[in-house]
Structures are given as C-alpha cells and as structure tokens.
C-alpha cells in the first residue's frame, strides 16, 4: 500500500475540519462549498479517520521508525494547539462554566477508544478469514491502545462527574457499559499472555475480540436506550462554533497518537512472535559434539 492516498484523505479531512471551521467562525461561508455543517463534520471525520488508518496499514510492518514518528509528531502538534485553544481561548460554557473544558480531551478520547476497538474488531474478522499474522499484530496493538484510551476515558469522566454530578462514579448505563468494555478488552490481553501457541492465541483472541465488540454499540447507544445521567451525543448543530476548533484539533491529535501507538505496538508484537517461532539455538554441548 502506498502512503499517497492517505495524505490526500488527511488533507481533505484537515480542510473540512479546520480551514472551513475557522472560515465559518469568521463569517466566511464560501469555503464550505454550500455543504451543511453536518456533512462538513462527517467529511472531516470520515476522511481524517480513513487517511490515518490507510497510513497505519501502509506503514505498520516497515522496519523504519519514521512513519510512526511522523504520526506522533502530528498528534503532539494538534494536541498542543487544541489544548491551548481549549484552555485559554475558547469561552466557558453557559452552565458548566470552566469545567466544560474537560470536554476537549474527554470526547476525543471516547471517539478514539471506540475507534481503536473497532479497528481491533476489523482485524479479528480479517484474521479469521485470511490467517495472516500481521492482522494478529495489528489486533494486539489496537486492543492495547483501546484499553489505555478507555482507562483514560474513565479517569477523565470521573474528574468531570465530581463537579457536575457531585459524585466521582455512578452505575449509570453509559459508565457501566464503558467499564464492562474496558475489562472485557483487558481480559483479552490477559488471555493472550496465557496462551503460548501463537496460532491458538491468534484464533482465540480474534473470537474473544468479536464477542467483546458487541459492547461497543451498546456503549454508544446506552444514552439513548436508557435514562442516563450522561448527556446524549452532541452534533455540530448543537455545539457552538467557538467549541469546534479545539474539539477537532484534539480529536485529530489523539487519532494521530493512537495510530502511532498502534504502529509501534504492532511492530513489537511482530518482533515477539518472530522470536517465539524461531528455531531454538543449539545447546553448547551439541555444538561441541558437532565439532
């Protein structure tokens, strides 16, 4: 796979995500090409995610460190600008005040945690149909990064819950299903540690990933299906334009960091498996006999 299409998709995502958002904020609507705000956000997110995943699959098996360094650099840059804008430039929200600034890291973490787990699910399905170990490495990387982001999500959520709900944690449907998701995927990582045979490990963890993934749509729709303390999903129509830029910058920042982490983690998984499958070195005594 070549990196060119990834760069084009990322450029389209950046155009609709940032250039159009900044222009609209300053009252210039011509750059939006007559598209409604929902379509612009979908294009930005869709092209950004597709470009990042294309880049991941094109470079994650390379021996070079340059691809993940590029992604990590872009991620740090976006996250730094987004956090600066979210903390010091964007105005406080009408009801939640300054605390709402947590949204600029909490929401992108949630999106990317679910995306990492979706990636793990896709790799698991592909591995079962086309048993190539590179898909197993990618799945392992995506699961571990998804678990880290889900853990971070729960920490950020608890910090936001205390000043707004008055409690650090509540067994509300959204929070409970997210905790189940975190522990389900943590269990898959534990399973991979216990199974020594690489073939069995790959098959069992693919099946377990597909089963655990059932919880992802439940997490997403939990706020609509049940009465929940957690607010429902927002969209560009319900979020002020002043909040778009920091939210999108951080969303892209965490997306790029997530891709860099999965690339590193997949390379690590491949190296470890190569070592597991390598024939054992001859014992010193055997070498002596041969001589």
């Amino acid at each position, binding site marked *: 796979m070549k990196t060119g299409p990834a760069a084009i998709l990322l450029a389209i995502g950046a155009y609709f995500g940032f250039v159009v958002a900044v222009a609209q904020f300053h009252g210039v609507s011509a750059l939006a090409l007559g598209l409604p705000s929902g379509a612009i956000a979908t294009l930005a997110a869709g092209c950004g995610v597709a470009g990042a995943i294309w880049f991941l699959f094109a470079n994650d098996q390379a021996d070079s460190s340059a691809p993940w360094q590029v992604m990590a650099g872009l991620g740090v840059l976006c996250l730094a600008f987004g956090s600066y804008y979210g903390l010091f430039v964007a105005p406080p929200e009408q*009801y939640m*005040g*300054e*605390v709402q600034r*947590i949204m600029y890291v909490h929401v992108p973490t949630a999106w990317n945690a679910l995306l990492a787990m979706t990636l793990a699910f896709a790799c698991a399905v592909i591995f079962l149909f086309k048993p190539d170990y590179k898909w197993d490495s990618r799945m392992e990387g995506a699961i571990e990064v998804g678990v880290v982001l889900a853990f971070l999500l729960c920490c950020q959520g608890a910090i936001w819950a205390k000043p707004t709900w008055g409690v650090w944690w509540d067994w509300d449907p959204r929070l409970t299903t997210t905790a189940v998701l975190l522990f389900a995927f943590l269990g898959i990582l534990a399973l991979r540690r216990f199974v020594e045979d690489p073939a069995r490990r790959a098959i069992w963890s693919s099946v377990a990933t597909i089963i655990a993934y059932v919880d992802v749509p439940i997490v997403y729709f939990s706020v609509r299906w049940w009465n929940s303390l957690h607010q429902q999903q927002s969209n560009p129509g319900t979020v002020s334009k002043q909040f778009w830029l920091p939210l999108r910058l951080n969303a892209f920042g965490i997306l790029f960091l997530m891709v860099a982490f999965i690339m*590193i983690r997949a390379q690590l998984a491949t*190296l*470890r498996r190569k070592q597991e499958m390598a024939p054992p070195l001859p014992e010193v005594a055997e070498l002596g006999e041969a001589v």
Partner: protein
Amino acid sequence: MSGGVVTGGWNFVIAAYTVTFSVLFIYGVSIVTRLREERSREKEEANPQ
C-alpha cells in the same frame, strides 16, 4: 454549583489535562522503550559474538 451553574472548577480541568498528558506520555515512552529493546535483542541474536 450556584443556581444550576457550575462555578470555579479549574482544579478539575487541570487534573483532567494532567492525567491525559501523563497517561499518553508514559504509555508512549513505555512502548518505544519496549520496541527498542526488542529490536536490539533481534540484532544481537542475528549477529551473536
């Protein structure tokens, strides 16, 4: 909280951002270190002295 509006709260904002950057930084450093160790071990095994 005052009249349904959350007042103050910068300490929570700082805590959330600190946790976010710390977790991402520590995890990033840990996997880069693990990858370097694994690569150097692979090189050592490929060229045993």
